[in-house]
């Protein structure tokens, strides 16, 4: 294998591990109290019959942001997006666009465009007519429409395909047409409903990066709905994790990953090992925890006697073949199973009968003759600052 080619590929393709640090660390209008949100959900609720889809959601999205609504299917994220587009109306609360309540506006009067999950391209119109559909509705002159359509085709790299019908395109091309169609009338915010669900993994990863660069070069506001945590991590400036109609946590990808608000978020974003215990002592920021027979040290905020959960990510757990000298945060066990992913190997370590811990190790050297195998006794350690103390 040519290591050069491999390296070049890794620069374009995101690793399956989430990126830490986000895309643009300096961009954070949500931290500025003077910033005026572009979109504001104000106590928005929605029920379908007896099923509550969205419960009292408060959320602000700012100009130029790439915002992700992340959650499992049925968590209300699509309903929230459809309410912004105008296809559903909230039972309670207000939705504001640029400070104006848009409740009374029907979908066709909202400067909000959506890229539909199955693309919803008009099958009787060709690519150029599809892209020009919104422009014609705006009453733009024919020549101007043609110019803009060409511009959009170039933007999504579909030059020369304007005359094709949607059924003559590949899945990836259809996705680009849908994107161009929604972008052409220059919406104030572009909504993307699971935009990459129909693409294969490779194409999905490429498209994620193209979407990011497109969003930044156009300086537009994007809001994406996805159930794929990797996708949300890669593309978004900020992620809101939804569960059962509520927003559990909203923040930068790294905040969500490194400082999850609760066990649900910790488990939904990436893998996590949880230790249930009680705070037995506190020394400044350092908490001493008793979890069954194990004692752990971790940094966090909790009072002595509180029930807490210690969340440790697999990649923050080190694997040792010999017992480490420091007895703190040390667990002995044997390797039950492992999964070799190429760049990483995930080990399943049994520390007590029926109790397993996940530990991940970057394969920084070519481990052809693997030093670790099933049944090997190992010691696991993690730093007190690597663990997160969760109170709920």
């Amino acid at each position: 294998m040519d290591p050069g080619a491999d390296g070049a590929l890794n620069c374009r393709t995101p690793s399956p591990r989430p990126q830490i640090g986000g895309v643009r660390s300096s961009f954070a209008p949500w931290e500025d109290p003077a910033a005026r949100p572009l979109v504001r959900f104000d106590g928005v609720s929605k029920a379908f019959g007896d099923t509550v889809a969205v419960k009292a959601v408060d959320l602000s999205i700012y100009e130029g942001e790439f915002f992700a609504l992340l959650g499992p299917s049925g968590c209300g994220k699509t309903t929230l997006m459809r309410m912004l587009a105008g296809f559903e109306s909230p039972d309670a609360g207000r939705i504001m666009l640029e400070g104006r309540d848009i409740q009374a506006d029907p979908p066709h009067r909202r400067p909000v465009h959506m890229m539909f999950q199955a693309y919803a391209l008009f099958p009787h119109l060709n690519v150029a007519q599809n892209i020009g559909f919104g422009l014609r509705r705006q009453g733009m002159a024919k020549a101007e429409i043609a110019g803009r359509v060409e511009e959009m085709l170039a933007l999504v790299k579909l030059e020369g395909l304007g005359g094709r019908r949607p059924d003559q395109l590949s899945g990836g091309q259809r996705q680009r047409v849908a994107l161009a169609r929604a972008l052409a009338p220059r919406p104030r915010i572009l909504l993307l409903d699971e935009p990459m669900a129909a693409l294969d993994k490779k194409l999905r990863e490429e498209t994620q990066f193209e979407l990011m660069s497109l969003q930044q070069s156009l300086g537009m506001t994007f809001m994406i709905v996805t159930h794929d945590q990797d996708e949300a991590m890669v593309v978004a400036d900020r992620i809101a994790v939804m569960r059962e109609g509520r927003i559990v946590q909203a923040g930068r990808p790294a905040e969500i990953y490194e400082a999850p608000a609760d066990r649900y978020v910790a488990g939904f974003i990436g893998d996590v090992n949880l230790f249930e215990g009680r705070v037995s002592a506190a020394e400044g920021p350092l908490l001493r925890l008793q979890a069954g027979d194990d004692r752990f040290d971790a940094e966090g905020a909790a009072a002595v006697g509180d029930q807490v959960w210690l969340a440790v990510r697999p990649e923050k757990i080190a694997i040792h073949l010999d017992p480490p000298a420091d007895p703190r945060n040390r667990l002995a066990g044997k390797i039950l199973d492992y999964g070799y992913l190429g760049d990483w190997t995930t080990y399943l370590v049994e520390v007590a009968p029926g109790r397993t811990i996940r530990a991940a190790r970057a394969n920084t050297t070519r481990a052809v003759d693997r030093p670790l195998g099933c049944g090997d006794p190992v010691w696991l350690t993690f730093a007190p600052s690597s663990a997160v103390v969760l109170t709920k």
Partner: protein
Amino acid sequence: MKGGKSGLAAILPFLWLALFFAFPFLLVAKLSFSDTALAMPPYAPRIDWSQGLAGLQAFFAALDGETYARLTRDRLYLDAYLSSLRIAATGTGLLLLIGYPLAYGISRCPPAVRQALVMAVILPFWTSFLIRIYAWIAILKPAGILNAALGALGLPPVDILNTETAVLLGLVYAYLPFMVLPLYAVLEKQDESLIEAAQDLGATPLQAFWRVTFPLSLPGAAAGALLCFIPMAGEFVIPDLLGGSETLMLGRVIWTEFFANRDWPAASAVAIVLLATLVVPILLFEREQGKVLR
């Protein structure tokens, strides 16, 4: 083994067509080139199989296009032909006007209601076609239900039985399911997200209908129109029962030639002309459209 099975499956439709379309069609075509005769059956020539090949040659020599020439000489046939086309076209237009909103309305209903409404459209088929047409006589006749109702409302009576209006009423009534069902089929399976996409891109609900729903439903409208227009052009029972003597349609001309005039060649020629000038061009058009839609 496998090849043989699929071969048979492929041949069956052709066998069906050959047996029930091509063969009768050839018989009728042969008849149209014969002459009337005072015989049983009432036409000549007939193949004299005892003469062998010579008999067959004599038979073909005796066939001529004289009947067709006769059709062009008598205005009656042209008038009946044009009148049939006009009535069938008017009926198809009315069916589209009535059937489209009906099919669209059904397709917008909740699924459970849709099923019931489709059932209601098909339900009249459970009663004999003839009885239903006779019922229209009872409704439209001078002292019938319609005039009784008009009288009760203080309106003057109408006398429309045995007029073209009655024929159109009967045709629209009888063919409505054939228009509604294909239209409903395309409207019902139309992707709701297309309408949402159109509205999302700035189309009003009315624009979304005209720009998206309507063009996408045209294949259904074409199928419904074909399904109604062709049989209506050759319809016999409805014009005979509701149209009286003043409504001239080809179906009745064929019947008269066969049974009243015992002119089998003329009846066959009219049928062939109808087929050649109406059905064949329409089917060719349909094939072209199929290519476009592919």
